[in-house]
């Protein structure tokens, strides 16, 4: 399989704190890779580093054969590596359709063309009926959905989703998973940060586990679920009475 993203030796330090420590892994085209790990494991920092929102301290990130770790966030997005945010960043004063148009404008100057593209994406993500609603008036589930729609409108090659189902109720989670499956069906490569196992397990082709900034395991979902180191990272050492 052809790799789309290669991360090698990625290290990010904030002063004395090492948030990401020598992380190395690859994402292949068409794959769904999930990153899991306890709170504070460095998952969001890792996303920020990949997408140019933070400068890495050392290591390299190669996207489609091109080194991107020194590029700015918008430049990386234009190459097709697009992210969503854990804490939703809806354009609150703009309508749902306008939110998506911003994404669609990435590859066209023509607002009319962007509007058409946005309409398609809204239909795809099931937001068509809410297209005139202001971003700030959406429920959290719809805001998360809008984050994804906006990113999709920019025609990404690799989509990075940062906890896109966190805080949703079971029903909303089910709908979100349906959407993820449709995105996968459309042939977009996904890199997901997630806590909710029922999302990750059925759709991931591979899982990477971070703990205290280090990659401690990588493999198929079933292998990961049974991995001693992963269980230890989440639950601590085995307790012998």
């Amino acid at each position, binding site marked *: 399989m052809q790799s789309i993203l290669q991360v090698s030796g990625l290290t990010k330090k904030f002063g004395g704190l090492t948030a990401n420590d020598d992380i190395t892994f690859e994402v292949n085209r068409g794959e769904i890779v999930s990153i899991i790990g306890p709170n504070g494991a460095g998952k969001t920092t890792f996303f920020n580093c990949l997408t140019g929102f933070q400068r890495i301290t050392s290591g390299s990130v190669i996207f489609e054969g091109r080194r991107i770790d020194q590029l700015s966030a918008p430049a990386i*997005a234009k190459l097709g590596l697009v992210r969503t945010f854990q804490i939703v960043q809806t354009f609150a004063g703009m309508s749902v359709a*306008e939110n998506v148009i911003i994404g669609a404008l990435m590859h066209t100057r023509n607002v009319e063309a962007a509007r058409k593209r946005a309409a398609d994406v809204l239909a795809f993500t099931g937001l068509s009926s809410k297209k005139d609603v202001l971003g700030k008036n959406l429920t959290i589930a719809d805001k998360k959905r809008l984050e994804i729609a906006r990113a999709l409108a920019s025609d990404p090659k690799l989509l990075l989703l940062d906890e896109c189902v966190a805080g949703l109720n079971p029903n909303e989670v089910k709908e979100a998973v349906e959407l993820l499956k449709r995105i996968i069906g459309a042939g977009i490569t996904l890199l997901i940060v997630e806590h909710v196992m029922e999302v990750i397990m059925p759709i991931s082709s591979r899982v990477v586990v971070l703990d205290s900034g280090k990659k401690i395991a990588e493999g198929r979902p079933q292998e990961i679920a049974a991995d001693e180191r992963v269980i230890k990272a989440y639950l601590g050492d085995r307790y012998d009475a």
Partner: protein
Amino acid sequence: MNIKTRHIWLILLALFAIVLPLILDSPFARHVLIVILLYSILGEAWSILGGYAGLLSFGQAAFFGIGAYTSTFLLINWGVSPWIGMIVGGFLAVLAAICLAYPCSKLQGHYFAIATLAFAEGLRIIFLNWNAVGGARGLDPPILPTSLWYLEFHESKLPYYYLLVLFLAVVMLAMWKLNSSRLGYYLRALRESNNAAESLGVNTKNCKVIATCISAFITAIAGTFYAQYVLYIDPASVMQLKLSIEIVLVTMFGGVGTMFGPLIGASFLTSISEIFRVVLGGAGRGMDLMIYGLLIMLISTLKPDGVWGLVTERLGRRPGKEKAKTSGE
């Protein structure tokens, strides 16, 4: 409102603008109208930054001054027509805008406001102490025979008025175009969330610099018009902080980020302040400013959308927004 009724409204508005100074034919009334037009243009220019991009500029006087000084300086020293002078001034203001906006593009909210304020004050003090441009004495363009080429009309204020109407129309058309352009969308997006905009490929730094340049260019051209209208400029009249603040207030009063907001704000506030100054005369010195201040306080507490927000609400226009309010929950 459909396109046809909108056209009719625009034609009526244009007719109104043409006929108005013929009805109000006293020099004082015409003077007030000219000042209103000037502030409307300045408010529109500010709106590109403050309304769209969410960058609060308190330094518009710097660009205004650059425009006024450039054309006047060129006219005095080399007899260059103000039409050419205003273009040169516009580009010098763009240069100043780049110097200001490039390093400040990471600043947001209050910090951008402080930076622009300091920039304008700094420039004012330089001009105040710069002998080549007259220092504190200022500059007065030579009195030339009335001509369009030299932008001097001594018999009547009407030519100034109509030129400014035309200028305002062009600026409003540009704003309307901007509203539905990619840059317009991008500026609104980065105002809402800089990070989200960047994640969608918006080069926010460039957008902010471009917005500042457009705003500066328009403001500088208005500066040239002012200089040719008053025929006297000094740092206290074209570069002072009061002017920057008035530009902000006029727009806020009328409605930030709307096309007609600055025009409405300028009409209200300028007429009120000019009329009170005349009516109260020496007895009520400063009264006009107090009433001005009171109005601003009222509108900002009661209707932060400005007067135009009030108008559109009453008329139930802006269908998109109205729908958004009811179906959003």
